[in-house]
Structures are given as structure tokens and as C-alpha cells.
């Protein structure tokens, strides 16, 4: 016998019927079967993949070049040291990208003739930097700017690389913010204006808070992407995780350090991706409960 409480908190004696017991027994047995099939299928796939790779004609050499334990041990601490640079770049560029992206998005939604140049510039900026391949952007900024030999302008590849990343990513993030702003129903703005709020106040207190909340999942997605693209600053010679691996590869002609660097990036990205999934799922749940909003 089970004792449950209904909404008013009253205790209610309830014995599951034979029908329910039978139904649940069937559900459990079906679940056990499903688990067993999944385990078997995974095992078979794993074994087949293993055999295909290991029996490939070039496997012994590949194993030596890409999966060498000695080089892996040598590379790991150096790569990790380099990774610290990637993490710092991510944090600083992340903040810069969010701020710049937001400013550009707001500039694009401004009304009124005074703001035409601002609107135009913002639109041109996003069009240009979303279209320009990141690698070319990086080369122009990291290699081109020092070539100008301008007084007082840095030649530090880390700073320049970070600048290039910020330029490209703020264009993406601006579009994410703009989509968020435009997804807020006009009736919300109308309600704010009818209360006497100015256009700016309506944007700040009513539209933006809702837009940002709605755009958290795509924003996190872009940050995950930025996180791995910080590896590209290595093209300017900054010693990040990729460059650290590069140095060892150049000396040893063994590619294992690349594998190590790759895995380290993946390991860094996974928590962020899981966090994104978690936030998205939580927001979906809230929306489902909230109904119309």
C-alpha cells in the first residue's frame, strides 16, 4: 500500500491496481532489453572500428607518428602551459566581443535620421567581418599591422591576434543580439512607450533584458567557437597550446603533440558545451511552464 498526498495535503490510501503493476513490469523489462541492445551494439561498433584501424596497412607507422607515448608525455606540460594563453585570450576577447557586439546591435536598431551613419557603419561592419574568413583577418592584422611600422602601435602577436578575433566575433555576436532584439514582440515596446518611457528607456528596461535572456544559448555557442579559435593566434608566433605543439613537431617531426593539443582543446570545450545544453534545456523548461511568453 502506498500513501500519497493530494494537492490539499490530505492523505489518501491508495493501492496500485493489478493492471498498473503489470504495466510497470512490462515497461521495466522493455527498458532492460533496450539497455542490453545498446551495450551490445556499442561493443560491436567499437570492435569493428578498432579492427579496421589496426589492420590498416599504414597503421604501425601512423601509430608511431601520431600516438607516440614518449612525445605525448613531453608535449603535455608545454601544451598545457600554452593553453593558459588561450584561456586568457578567451576571457578578455569574450568580454570585448559581448560589449562590442551589443553596441553594434543597438546601433543597428536605432531609429531616426541622425543615426543613419551609425546604422550604416554597423551594417557594413557586420556584413564585412562575417564574410571575411577569420584566418585572412588574422593574417592581415597580425602580419600586416606590424609591417606598417607605426609609432606606438603594438606588434605583440597576442594583442593583435586578440584584436582580430574580437573584430570577427563581435560581428557574429552583434547579429545574435539583433535577432534577439527583433524577436521581442512590438506590443512590449508599445506597452513601454504607452507608460511614457522614452525609446531608450524602453530598450534598456523592457526590450534588452528579454532579448539577452532569449539569446543566451546561441551566445554561449559562439563563445565555445571563440574558445577553440583562440588557437589561431599561433599563426603570428604567439606561444599558445597549438604553437607549443608546433615547436615540438618542428624539432621531432612527430605529430603526437598536435593530437595532445587537439584533445586538450576538446577537453576545455566539453564543459562549456554541456553548460550551454544545460542552460538551453532549463530555458525551454521555463518557457514550457510559462506558456504564452
Amino acid at each position, binding site marked *: 500500500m502506498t500513501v500519497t498526498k493530494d494537492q490539499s495535503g490530505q492523505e489518501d490510501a491508495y493501492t496500485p491496481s493489478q493492471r498498473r503493476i503489470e504495466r510497470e513490469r512490462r515497461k521495466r523489462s522493455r527498458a532492460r532489453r533496450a539497455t542490453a541492445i545498446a551495450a551490445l551494439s556499442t561493443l560491436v561498433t567499437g570492435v569493428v572500428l578498432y579492427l579496421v584501424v589496426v589492420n590498416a596497412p599504414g597503421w604501425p607507422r601512423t601509430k608511431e607518428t601520431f600516438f607516440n607515448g614518449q612525445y605525448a608525455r613531453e608535449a603535455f606540460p608545454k601544451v598545457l602551459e600554452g593553453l593558459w594563453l588561450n584561456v586568457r585570450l578567451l576571457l578578455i576577447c569574450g568580454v570585448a566581443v559581448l560589449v562590442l557586439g551589443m553596441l553594434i546591435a543597438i546601433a543597428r536598431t536605432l531609429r531616426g535620421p541622425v543615426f543613419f551613419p551609425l546604422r550604416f557603419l554597423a551594417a557594413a561592419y557586420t556584413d564585412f567581418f562575417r564574410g571575411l574568413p577569420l584566418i585572412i583577418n588574422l593574417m592581415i592584422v597580425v602580419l600586416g599591422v606590424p609591417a606598417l611600422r607605426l609609432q606606438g602601435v603594438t606588434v605583440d602577436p597576442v594583442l593583435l591576434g586578440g584584436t582580430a578575433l574580437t573584430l570577427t566575433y563581435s560581428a557574429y555576436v552583434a547579429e545574435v543580439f539583433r535577432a534577439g532584439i527583433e524577436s521581442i514582440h512590438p506590443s512590449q515596446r508599445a*506597452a*513601454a512607450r504607452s507608460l511614457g518611457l522614452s525609446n531608450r528607456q524602453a530598450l534598456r528596461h523592457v526590450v534588452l533584458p528579454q532579448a539577452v535572456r532569449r539569446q543566451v544559448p546561441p551566445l554561449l555557442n559562439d563563445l565555445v567557437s571563440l574558445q577553440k579559435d583562440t588557437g589561431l593566434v599561433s599563426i603570428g608566433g604567439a606561444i599558445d597550446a597549438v604553437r607549443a605543439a608546433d615547436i615540438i613537431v618542428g624539432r621531432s617531426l612527430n605529430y603526437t603533440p598536435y593530437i595532445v593539443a587537439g584533445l586538450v582543446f576538446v577537453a576545455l570545450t566539453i564543459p562549456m558545451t554541456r553548460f550551454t545544453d544545460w542552460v538551453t534545456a532549463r530555458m525551454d523548461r521555463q518557457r514550457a511552464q510559462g506558456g504564452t511568453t
Partner: protein
Amino acid sequence: MSDAPVLRMESVRKTFGDSVVLRDVDLEVAPHTVTALIGASGSGKSTLLRCANLLEEIDDGAIWLDDEEITDPRVDQDAVRRRIGVVFQAYNLFPHMTVLENITLAPRRVHGVARAEAEEHARELLERLGLGGKAGEYPDRLSGGQQQRVAIVRALAVRPRLLLLDEITAALDPELVGEVLAVVRGLKDEGMTMVLATHEMGFARDVADQVCFLDGGVVLERGTAEQVFGDPQQERTQRFLRRIVEAGRL
């Protein structure tokens, strides 16, 4: 204050592309009176209210609020809207703010009222409308009737000169309509000047001092509730009211 009308419209014309939504509309709303706009969907009731609040720009004619021409391009529109409260059919509460934040936003940000004072006034109004326990709730936790009453409190919190109510019961379940209409009746007793677009004919007859029947963007017939509902002169008004009666809505 004198008997000068709170709201006056003269020859107002409004078009959306090729369709003329309001043509030559005249309207006068005296202080402490209730004006009901009735008519079929698409007759221009909502547009008239949106024009009065400058949410829509009129094509021709003029609108005065307390003897100030608010359709003058030099007028500060935000200042005009501060004196007019609006309640919408779909409530339009801000979903990311609690009830209390919804209500105190305009008093604090627009009218510069201190937080404590704004919250006290808001709680007072909530209490009066039977929403005393709901200050900390988010709008999506409330029923439609409760949300609409919060929207009314939000409009009242800035002590408006005029309240515009746009089909405020149209989105509500039938059993929730009564609680909202009771609030409007209470406001009338307190002397609030209101213009309401409504499909609730029984309510319009009860509460309105002036009834305007809109048809195709024209005020086809106007008068006291007794005149318009009891002895309509225009054939189209008669037909409209007959349909309402047949539908059991009057």
C-alpha cells in the same frame, strides 16, 4: 478643473496603405465620464485609441488633451503619454519583471518617484484590486484576469488624466471577465475619465455615459447608452445590435 473636455478629436483620418481605418472622426470626452466605443471588429475602435495615445500617427485632423494639441509635431510625445494610461487586450505585461516591478517601472524611471514611495503606492493599488498577495509573482504565474488587473494597476500607478481600455476582456475566459469589469466600474465611481473599446455590450450599457458606434471608420451613431442601445436611429446600428442580441451577448 473646468468642464473642458479631457480628450477632443476633430476630423481625424487614419489610413494603413490603401485602407482608410478612420475617416473624419470627431469625439469629445468630458472629465469624469466614460465613453464606450462599440462596433464590429475592424471598425476602427482600437486604432482610435492608439491614435489618442500617439502610438499611431494620424494622417489628418487634430487631437487635444486638456486643450493642448497633442498632434502638433513640436509636442513632446513622451510627456503626452505620461498623462494617458493604456490597458491592452493582451495585457502586455513585462514577463521578465515581477508584478511590483511592472507597476513601479514607469513611476520610478519616468516620473522620478523614489523606490519606497512607488512600491507603497503600488501595494496600495494591488490591495484595492484584490491582488495583495501577488506583488512578488511573475506575470506567467497569474490567471488572465489577474494579469489584466495588474495591467490596470500599472496604468493607474502614474496617476493618469485619462485611461484608454482596448478590449480588455476580449482575451479572458468568460468566468474571469466579471472581476475585470468590476474594477472598471470601481474606477468610474472614483471619477476616472475613460475611453473603452469593448464587445461587452451589457457592460457598455451599464457603465458608459456616452456610447459611440463605429462602422467602417466612421462614428455612425453616438448618444447616451439609453439612446444608442434603446432607440438606435441608424439602420446599421440596429442591425449590429440585433446580431449581438441574437448571439446572446446583450
